[in-house]
C-alpha cells in the first residue's frame, strides 16, 4: 500500500498586525493560502519551518498545517485552518476583504 504524500504549508501570524500568513518560496510571506508553497517532503517541511522560526521579527507562532493540494492552490483540510484562511463568519473583516 502506498503512503499518501504529505501536503503541508507553513503558516504563522504577522508580528505587527497579527494577520495569518503563509510561506511562499523562496522566502516571502503571503496572506493568501492559495498562493502558499505546498510542501510534500518531510525534510523540506522541517527546513521550511526552521526558516520561518528564524524570522522572529516578522512572524509569530509558525507551524506546519495540513492542506489539500488542488489545481487552484492549497486548501485547508481542517475547519480551523479554513477559518484562519478566510476570516470570521459573522463579518467580512478577515481575508474576505481581500
Amino acid at each position, binding site marked *: 500500500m502506498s503512503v499518501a504524500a504529505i501536503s503541508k504549508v507553513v503558516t504563522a501570524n504577522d508580528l505587527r498586525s*497579527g494577520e495569518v500568513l503563509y510561506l511562499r518560496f523562496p522566502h516571502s510571506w503571503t496572506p493568501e493560502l492559495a498562493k502558499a508553497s505546498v510542501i510534500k517532503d518531510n525534510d523540506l517541511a522541517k527546513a521550511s519551518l526552521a526558516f520561518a522560526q528564524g524570522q522572529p*521579527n516578522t512572524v509569530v507562532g509558525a507551524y506546519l498545517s495540513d492542506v489539500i493540494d488542488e489545481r487552484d492552490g492549497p486548501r485547508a483540510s481542517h*475547519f480551523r485552518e479554513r*477559518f484562519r484562511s478566510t476570516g*470570521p*463568519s459573522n463579518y467580512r*473583516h478577515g481575508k474576505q476583504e481581500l
Partner: protein
Amino acid sequence: MYQYSRFDHEFTAERVAQFRAQVARRLDGSLTEEEFKPLRLMNGLYLQLHAYMLRVAIPYGTLNSRQMHQLAMIAERWDKGYGHFTTRQNIQFNWPKLEDVPDILQALADVEMHAIQTSGNTVRNVTADHFAGAAADELADPRPIAELIRQWSTDHPEFQFLPRKFKIAVTGSPNDRAVTRAHDIGLRMTEQDGQRGFEVIVGGGLGRTPMIGKTLSPFVALDDLLPYLEAVVSTYNLLGRRDNKYKARIKITTHEHGIEQIKQRVEAQFAKIKPRFAGANLQLLKDIEQHFALPKFKSSSAQVEADSAPAQSPAFRAWLYTNISAHKLPGYAIVSVSLKKPGATPGDASADQMRALAEIARNFGHDELRISHEQNVILPHVHRADLTQVFQALRQADLAAANIGLISDIIACPGMDYCALATARSIPVAQQIATRFQALKLEHDIGPLKLKISGCINACGHHHVGHIGILGLEKAGVESYQITLGGDGGAEAEIGTRAGPGFGADEIVPAIERLLLGYLQLRLDRNESFLEAYRRLGLAPFKALLYPQARKAA
C-alpha cells in the same frame, strides 16, 4: 462612580509607558516573542486566530458616557468599528495592530480605564451584579467593595503568579445575577445582628471541571473582608497545584483538600495577617463609598410613562415587558439594552451604537451604564417618564430588541470565529437559533429561557449554567455540539446535565427547535418555565425530544 486618585493615574500612566517601551523593544528585535508574550498578556493583549485581541477591563461592569464614547473612538480609530462585550464584563477589540496598542492603552488611561490583569494567573477583573446600585432587591451597592478589591488585587506583589487565573464576583442582592457560585470567590452581601458582611463562597468554576462553589464562611464582617480575602488567595497560592494547569484552579484545590481543611488554613492565615490591616483599608473603603453616592434623582412625582403603556405602540409595550426591571425608586426603572437582535453577534456593539448608548445615558440615565455578564448594556437609572424617549433613541440605533431573558438573548463566546482556544464556532449557532425562533414567533410563548453557548470546554459562554447549554467541540474533523440541560446560574446554582451525543452543525438548530416545541407540549401551563418543567420531569422526556431516532430504535 469611582474617580481615579492621583495614585491610580500615576500607576496606569506608568504601565502605559512601560508597555510602550516593551512593544518598541519587541518590534526592534530586542525582545523575543517568548520574552514579550507574558508582558503583553499582563496588559490584556492576546494573539488570536486572525489578529491580536485586546481585552479591556470594565471593573464591576460600570461605565460612564465619557468612557463609552472613548471605547467607540478606539473601535473606530484602531479597530474595525465595533467592540465585543464579554461574559466577564470586559470589552474585547478583535483587530488592533501591535504598534497601536500603547496608544489604545493611553486612550483608555485618559478615561480611567485599563487592560491590566485581564489575562495571566492573577486576580482578574472583579465582576458584580449589573443592577448594582439600582436594584430594588439589593441590601446595598456592592461596587465599593468591588472597587476596593480591584485596588487591592491590582499589582498585588504576592498574587502576580498564582497557580492559575482567579475570578471574583460580588453581589449585594439575594437574587444572584452575578453567578457568584461559579467563581473562584463569590461574595454575597448579607447581614448578621444588624452588621453588614458577606457570605464567602470558594471553589466555584465552569470550564472542563465545572463545580458549584462552597460556602467557606456564611458571614465575614465588612471590616474583616479584605484580610479574609487575602487569607483565601494566600492559602490558594501556597496550596494550589502548579504541576498540572488543568488542576490548578482553586475549585480543584478545594475539592482535593476539602472545604474544612481550606477553612482551617484560611482562618489561621487570617488570624496572622489581620493585625496588618490596621484600618487603612477601611478608611479607603469609606473614601470609595463617597464615589458611589446615588445620583440626584428626579422627583418621582413626574408622570409615570409606563403606566400609560397600553396607549403606546405594541413594540414599545413588548420592550417594556421584557427589558425593564424594578428600580429601588418607584419612579425609576432599570433598562436592559439587548445586544442580541436576532441575527446579530451576541455582545457586539458598533461604534455608532456605543455613542448612542453614551448619549442616552447622558441625557436620560444620570450618565451611568453597566455591562452585564449576559453581554447586554444596562441603563441603571432611567426615570419612567423618559422611557418612551429612551426607547425611541434605542430604536434609532438599532438597539431596541425586546428579548431580555428570552431564547434569543443568548450568551455566546467568540468561539472559533476569533478565539485561538476554541474547538468550534459559537456565533453562527447563536445567530441561527435567534433568527429561527424569531421566524417561528415562539419566543414570548416559550418565555424565560437562558441559552448559553461555549465554543470549547473552557466554558466562557457559561453553557454549564444555561437552562439549555451548548458546547461546541470537534468530532472526527467537524464541528459537533453537545447539549446540556437544567443548568442554572442563579441563587440556587446548578450545573446542567449532558443530554447525550453531540449534534452536527446543521443538526443543532433543529434539535433545539424539537426540544422547545416539545417543552410547549410538556409544560403544565404558560407559567411553568422551561427550567421548572425540566426540574419537574427530569431529563428523560427532553432527551426523547432531542433523540427521536433512539426512541424509535428502542
